[in-house]
């Protein structure tokens, strides 16, 4: 088994069909994407152990903090040992984390659930997220955006599978009495472990010098695309890394804040016109645009370039955020919904396009590790975005602003964030000659 996991053993034969690699990546991302749907366990967990929603809510925060930290810490190790071994470790952590959390739920130990889901599972999340990135970029040098978009779309899709699946399992196990949480954790842990192991075992890296038939490096020469290499230890000390860190952080902060507040927001802005069930439908619609944006925008970036794609995200995003208060004043639910659908597609697109942007700027060989370090921007945005939306709303309401108008200032703050993001994106230039290996 250790030999099978060795990087050399995962090198594909010359006639290998590269289209086998994206489903392997999808298998892993569809499993770890369950993290987005973890809130489905919140209420059952409060009943299971008598914990508060705030205490249980920390698991979600831990997921994304540990994701960023583990991706940053283990990215270099991943590049050294290859994606297969990293995928297997991710499967052990993600599946094993659920088993530890099941023991915690059964023993009514919140600390054990934090450890299992949040810390061990969070490590699986980080490693699993970055494990296919550099492999896909090496297999698809001609369509980097589409390839990483496919995998990262799986992360969004994982929540769509995870939420109803967990709900069905909990209902099934409730027949035995209790909340059914620990039994659901055991089942999900086993299913996710097996699916991720299958994905990890399918990973193949291309042989040295492999190129898609008929494609030559430089045949699609674009500004800001290099065929040279910047080492990971050098990359994070370049201004380009921190500009892209800011680009991701600001794009995600704007979207994640809205996503977390989408349901109460539409109900408050259109009070009496949008019921709770319709608001749930709005959240579902945003999820669909989120995953469609991941594959759609990332694929488009192969044609128009990464910088131009982010110019669209930030420029168009600013217009849409600025238009939201107007749609509220007009009382137009369709325009309000349409604005947020496009905003959320660009939020998803931002995640999916960034690995290809990094590969363009720093070269493909260390992109997994560089992407891992960049994901700390996501962890930061996960704290900034929701806090900004929540506190600005509370501040406005405390000043006597009507709830329907309370989001207007938030939207203009988002416009400001996106303007800074646009400036950072436009400042990205090729790295200095001295930075290349």
């Amino acid at each position, binding site marked *: 088994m250790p030999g099978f996991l060795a990087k050399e053993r995962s090198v594909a034969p010359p*006639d290998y069909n590269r289209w086998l690699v994206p489903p392997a990546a*999808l298998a892993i991302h569809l499993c770890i994407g369950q993290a987005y749907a973890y809130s489905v366990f919140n209420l059952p967990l409060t009943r299971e152990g008598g914990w508060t929603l705030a205490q249980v809510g920390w698991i979600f925060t831990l997921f994304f903090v540990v994701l960023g930290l583990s991706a940053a810490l283990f990215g270099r190790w991943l590049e050294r040992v290859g994606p297969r071994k990293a995928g297997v470790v991710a499967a052990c952590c993600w599946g094993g984390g659920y088993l530890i959390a099941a023991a915690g739920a059964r023993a009514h130990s919140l600390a054990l659930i934090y450890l299992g889901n949040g810390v061990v599972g969070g490590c699986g999340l980080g490693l699993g997220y970055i494990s296919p990135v550099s492999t896909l970029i090496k297999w698809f040098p001609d369509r980097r955006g589409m390839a990483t978009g496919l995998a990262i779309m799986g992360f969004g899709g994982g929540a769509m599978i995870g939420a*109803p699946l967990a709900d069905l399992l909990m209902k099934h196990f409730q027949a035995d009495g209790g909340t059914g949480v620990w039994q659901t954790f055991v089942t999900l842990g086993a299913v996710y472990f097996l699916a991720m192991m299958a994905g990890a075992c399918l990973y193949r890296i291309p042989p040295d010098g492999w190129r898609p038939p008929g494609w030559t490096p430089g045949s699609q020469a674009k500004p800001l695309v290099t065929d040279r290499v910047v080492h990971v230890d050098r990359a994070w000390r370049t201004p380009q890394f921190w500009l892209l860190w800011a680009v991701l952080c600001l794009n995600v902060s704007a979207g994640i804040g809205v996503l977390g507040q989408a349901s109460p927001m539409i109900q408050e802005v259109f009070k009496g016109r949008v019921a709770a*069930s*319709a608001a*749930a439908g709005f959240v579902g619609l945003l999820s669909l645009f989120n995953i469609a944006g991941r594959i759609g925008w990332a694929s488009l970036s192969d044609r128009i370039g990464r910088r131009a794609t982010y110019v669209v995200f930030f420029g168009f995003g600013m217009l849409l955020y600025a238009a939201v208060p107007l749609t509220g004043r007009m009382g137009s639910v369709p325009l309000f919904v349409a604005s947020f659908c496009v905003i959320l597609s660009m939020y998803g697109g931002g995640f999916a396009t960034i690995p290809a942007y990094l590969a363009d700027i720093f070269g493909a060989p260390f992109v997994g590790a560089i992407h891992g370090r960049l994901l700390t921007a996501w962890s930061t945005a996960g704290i900034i975005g929701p806090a900004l939306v929540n506190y600005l709303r509370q501040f406005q309401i405390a000043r006597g602003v009507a709830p329907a108008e309370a989001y207007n200032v938030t939207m203009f703050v988002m416009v400001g964030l996106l303007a800074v993001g646009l400036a950072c994106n436009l400042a990205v230039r090729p790295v200095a000659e001295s930075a290349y290996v």
Partner: protein
Amino acid sequence: MSEPRRQGAAVALAWILVGLPLAWGVWMTVRKAMMLFR
């Protein structure tokens, strides 16, 4: 079966295996999203 055909079949099977659960998840979400238009 020739190697390219065998690999083609493996590609189709792999996409079906990941595509089916994804399609189920999308369908469940579409059903939820339809509540907005009722």
